[in-house]
């Protein structure tokens, strides 16, 4: 056996579903790293809760991807047996937890998008995706509320919390562009009403940001330069380390059932 990695088919819907599953899994994994180490017990619970929701979303999406691919792969094959360059998550979700402000701002930037995205997806022409969206909407609403409230609290808390929140916002904002970029492979899916058009989601995202950052007293970064690459499998250096830890058991015991 020369590799324990799987190869996956080249299909547009499959790729689009896999990419969203990867977003949810990687962000869920990052949040799960906090477990037992959060600033207060209530946040240990809240972050674990959000992580659980996201891993749950990832599992539904992988399951659907497996149906589309029809190659006998399971959710665990996708999660544990792909190399970093085979992951299609956006770079934002793989960024390290950093301090609590980085985790919250990352979550806020993502959830403000994801909530609007899943809302739009409830009317997807693809019934399976619409069903996953319907389940995800109340979850993402909670994730957004939690992250937005903390963003305000940190932004308008102490001098230190304000500084940390602004640092996090400045550092993470360049990773938001990928949420709105449309890979060439997805244009047909958008035209076909299967995927929500990011352009229709941006107004809700921008409105949320303007309102929450104003209330938090945080300055919206003016930089228009954006990082990208995740959707093409070109990640940051962080993803490889995350996956090494996540995948070590299935990689060490190929074929074992756990």
């Amino acid at each position, binding site marked *: 056996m020369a590799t324990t990695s799987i190869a996956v088919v080249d299909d547009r819907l499959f790729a689009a579903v896999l990419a969203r599953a990867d977003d949810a899994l990687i962000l869920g*994994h990052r949040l799960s790293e906090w477990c*037992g180490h959060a600033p207060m017990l209530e946040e240990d619970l809240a972050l674990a809760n959000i992580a659980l929701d996201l*891993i749950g979303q*990832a599992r539904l999406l992988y399951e659907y991807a497996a149906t589309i691919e029809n190659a006998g792969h399971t959710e665990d094959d996708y*999660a544990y047996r792909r190399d970093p360059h085979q992951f299609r998550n956006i770079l934002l979700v793989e960024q390290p937890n950093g301090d609590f402000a980085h985790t919250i701002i990352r979550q806020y930037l993502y959830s403000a998008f994801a909530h609007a995205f899943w809302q739009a997806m409830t009317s997807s022409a693809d019934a399976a995706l619409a069903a996953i969206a319907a389940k995800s909407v109340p979850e993402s609403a909670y994730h957004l509320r939690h992250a937005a409230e903390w963003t305000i609290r940190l932004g308008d808390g102490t001098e230190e*919390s304000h500084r940390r929140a602004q640092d996090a916002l400045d550092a993470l904002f360049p990773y938001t562009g990928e949420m709105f970029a449309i890979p060439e492979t997805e244009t047909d899916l958008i035209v076909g009403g299967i995927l929500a058009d990011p352009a229709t989601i941006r107004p809700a995202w921008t409105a949320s940001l303007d309102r929450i950052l104003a209330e938090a007293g945080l300055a919206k970064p003016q930089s228009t330069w954006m990082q990208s690459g995740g959707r093409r499998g070109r990640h940051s250096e962080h993803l490889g380390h995350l996956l090494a830890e996540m995948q070590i058991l299935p990689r060490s*015991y190929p074929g*074992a059932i*756990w």
Partner: protein
Amino acid sequence: AGRLGAFQARIDAEQKIEPNDWMPEAYRRTLIRQIAQHAHSEIVGMLPEGNWITRAPSLRRKAALLAKVQDEGGHGLYLYAAAETLGVARETLVEQLLSGGAKYSSIFNYPTLTWADIGAIGWLVDGAAIMNQIPLCRCSYGPYARAMIRVCKEESFHQRQGYEIMTVLARGTTAQRAMAQDALDRWWWPCLMMFGPPDGESQHSDASTRWKIKRFSNDELRQKFVDATVPQGHYLGLSFPDPALRFDEATSHWHYGAIDWDEFRAVLRGDGPCNRDRLAARNRAHENGAWVREAALAFAEKRRRKAAA
């Protein structure tokens, strides 16, 4: 003496004592110590299992483990709340934990070295905890008894989940089977120690028994655990690391060998494999989170003033 008599009469009649009822100071102190120790155990207990969340070998197991550790945090939260009904602030209790002044279950001072340890903790550690805790559902202090009902329900779910992990490993590859056996070998004796010193040496028991905080002796509970667990292990084809273990037809109990109480006392005084790591991890989380808690307080204060203005 009249109040004390009436108090004991209510307890004898299996009536619950509630937060606003009069109670002897020793009763209050005993309960605070016990509930706090229990809450601390839940919190520290998040660490050994949390150590495997990022390495769980399937998404289903990852989600289940994350949910389990979250449950433990939840138990900690409502146990602290139960303790607070006795007039002690959560901050005070947390400070006692962080400074090393308060105890927590010694079992969490052992490391989780393989995935099988997650199975073994569910099966054995939660199994032992349930033995200890089921009688507490009828504890004389109302808030504690009610908290324990919820805790026990969730713990028994965790226990079944742990046993299921062990089952899959025991029926898995040679390496997985060895992993399961190794976990049982390492966790068995520490789990027997979870029930505390042998009856002759146990402190606090007399008053706790009279107050219906404690309804069974350490040795009684330990024997119940052994009797329930040994057949489960044998069913999986695993062996217990105790050459003296045998079924006693006369008593219908599993007889077990001598427990190494020196190890128990060593871990209790801080010399277990992970005591320092566990306390260090809790302290680090607390220190790293200080600015967040300060920010939340400052924000709440600002909003309060704004609302008042």
